[in-house]
């Protein structure tokens, strides 16, 4: 709020000739340091953006457009966020070639799989640290070793991991990293791209104008948003380890409470997984109908009925899940403000809802009667 009132810090951080401008610049630079500190980077490596979507676009298109003389091949995976996938699709329309790696059935991309597809003309590998649907954690350190050795730029979408997992860019050989504020309780509509200085990584700007952010991203900075992101990152740095333990204990309590239900499957690797994520399929129960029974809990589903495209989750499909299990999935997120009472309440509600919906499910009937559902001739519609 202080940055939005005239009595407060209302100046333009780019106006270096008057006091209001200086104060705004100082606030922005404090925030830049707070963001850099969380990932052990130099503040000069932080470029403000409107969020991780813009950071992904800037990283991927920025590298492709800058290094296109060197090559036009990019590597990513099938389960990236749409901000990455659609940036890649756009580059394909511009004549680039993209390899989309398949994750294993646990949702992980092996370093070896990355090494295997890097070619002479590969300029960028873009992989996420933590997947937004299933929470699995890629081995960024190992992949970074490979890309550095092969002199390929490595971009990591860390929208879901910053403030939740330790990120040390002194040790991880990552060249570009997308960050956002709102996944760790900061304001919506602000994020950043980390751009490594040593060895130096170049990107072609995607927004042209007054040359802000070292020419990489023009536009007057949203001081109030940036200050909010800095504060969120500062708090995360202080609290993340303690928070991790607490959130993990709650997630395990939740899983323990649900795993004795018949025919439930956890989607994605359980061990290499961010603490707050549980993605689970209740076979023979459609995900959207389950969410409807749990309206007072904040959940999402891989069911087609909850998506604009009417297709089940492409992430779950890429793990090799059947359409049925993808339709029957639920993502439950445990966070900073989740309590044990809420977990117990959710467990009880989910038990009730699954039992009720299975009572309603012809598939459950058939399963109980020993019918092999794969052998039934269904009329797809």
């Amino acid at each position, binding site marked *: 709020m202080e940055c939005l009132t005239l009595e407060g810090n209302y100046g333009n951080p780019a106006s270096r000739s008057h006091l209001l401008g200086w104060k705004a610049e100082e606030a922005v630079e404090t925030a830049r340091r707070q963001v850099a500190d969380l990932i052990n980077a130099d503040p000069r490596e932080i470029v403000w953006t409107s969020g991780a979507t813009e950071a992904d676009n800037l990283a991927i298109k920025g590298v492709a457009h800058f290094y296109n003389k060197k090559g036009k091949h990019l590597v990513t995976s099938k389960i990236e966020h749409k901000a990455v996938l659609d940036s890649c699709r756009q580059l394909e329309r511009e004549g680039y070639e993209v390899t989309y790696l398949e994750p294993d059935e646990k949702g992980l991309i092996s370093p070896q799989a990355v090494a295997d597809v890097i070619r002479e003309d590969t300029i960028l590998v873009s992989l996420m640290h933590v997947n937004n649907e299933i929470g699995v954690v890629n081995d960024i350190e190992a992949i970074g070793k490979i890309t550095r050795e092969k002199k390929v730029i490595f971009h990591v979408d860390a929208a879901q991991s910053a403030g939740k997992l330790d990120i040390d860019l002194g040790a991880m050989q990552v060249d570009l990293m997308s960050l956002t504020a709102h996944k760790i309780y900061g304001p919506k509509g602000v994020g950043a791209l980390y751009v490594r200085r040593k060895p130096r990584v170049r990107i072609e700007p995607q927004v042209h104008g007054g040359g802000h952010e070292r020419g990489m991203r023009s536009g007057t900075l949203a001081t109030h948003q940036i200050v909010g992101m800095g504060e969120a990152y500062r708090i995360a740095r202080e609290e993340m380890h303690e928070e991790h333990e607490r959130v993990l204990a709650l997630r395990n309590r939740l899983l323990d409470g649900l795993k004795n239900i018949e025919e439930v499957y956890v989607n994605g690797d359980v061990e290499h997984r961010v603490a707050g994520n549980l993605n689970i399929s209740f076979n023979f129960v459609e995900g959207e109908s389950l969410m409807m029974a749990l309206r007072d809990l904040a959940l999402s589903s891989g069911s087609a009925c909850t998506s604009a495209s009417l297709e089940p989750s492409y992430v779950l499909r890429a793990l090799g899940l059947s359409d049925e299990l993808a339709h029957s999935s639920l993502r439950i997120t445990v966070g900073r403000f989740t309590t044990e009472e809420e977990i117990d309440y959710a467990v009880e509600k989910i038990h009730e809802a699954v039992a009720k919906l299975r009572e309603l499910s*012809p598939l459950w009937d058939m399963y109980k009667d020993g019918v092999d559902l794969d052998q039934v001739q269904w*009329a797809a*519609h």
Partner: protein
Amino acid sequence: MAYSDKVLDHYENPRNVGKFDDEDANVGTGMVGAPACGDVMRLQIKVDDKGVIEDAKFKTYGCGSAIASSSLLTEWVKGRSLTEATEIKNKDIADELGLPPVKIHCSVLAEDAIKAAVADIKSKRDGELE
């Protein structure tokens, strides 16, 4: 998405949930949809000698709208002749429940279900006449 009160009511208190014996000569069964599409509906009708539907039961795997439309369908078919029952349109169900147009395609299986159930009972009875 916001659900209408009618959808919520049918979802919370679904009418006529259950199963009749498939083998019963007076029961017609229609199973439509596919698990891969996220919707499967089983509609069963019990038909008297005059060809009037005296009872109906359903089970549905699908989203809330699919469950509500199945439940409503069982209410509507009771007391109708087989011909009258097949005149029920998906759009009528969607209108009654206040479903948005996008849901008509994906979650209202009513027309297909009643046609399949009627075809089943007719084939059973034709069989008897022979």
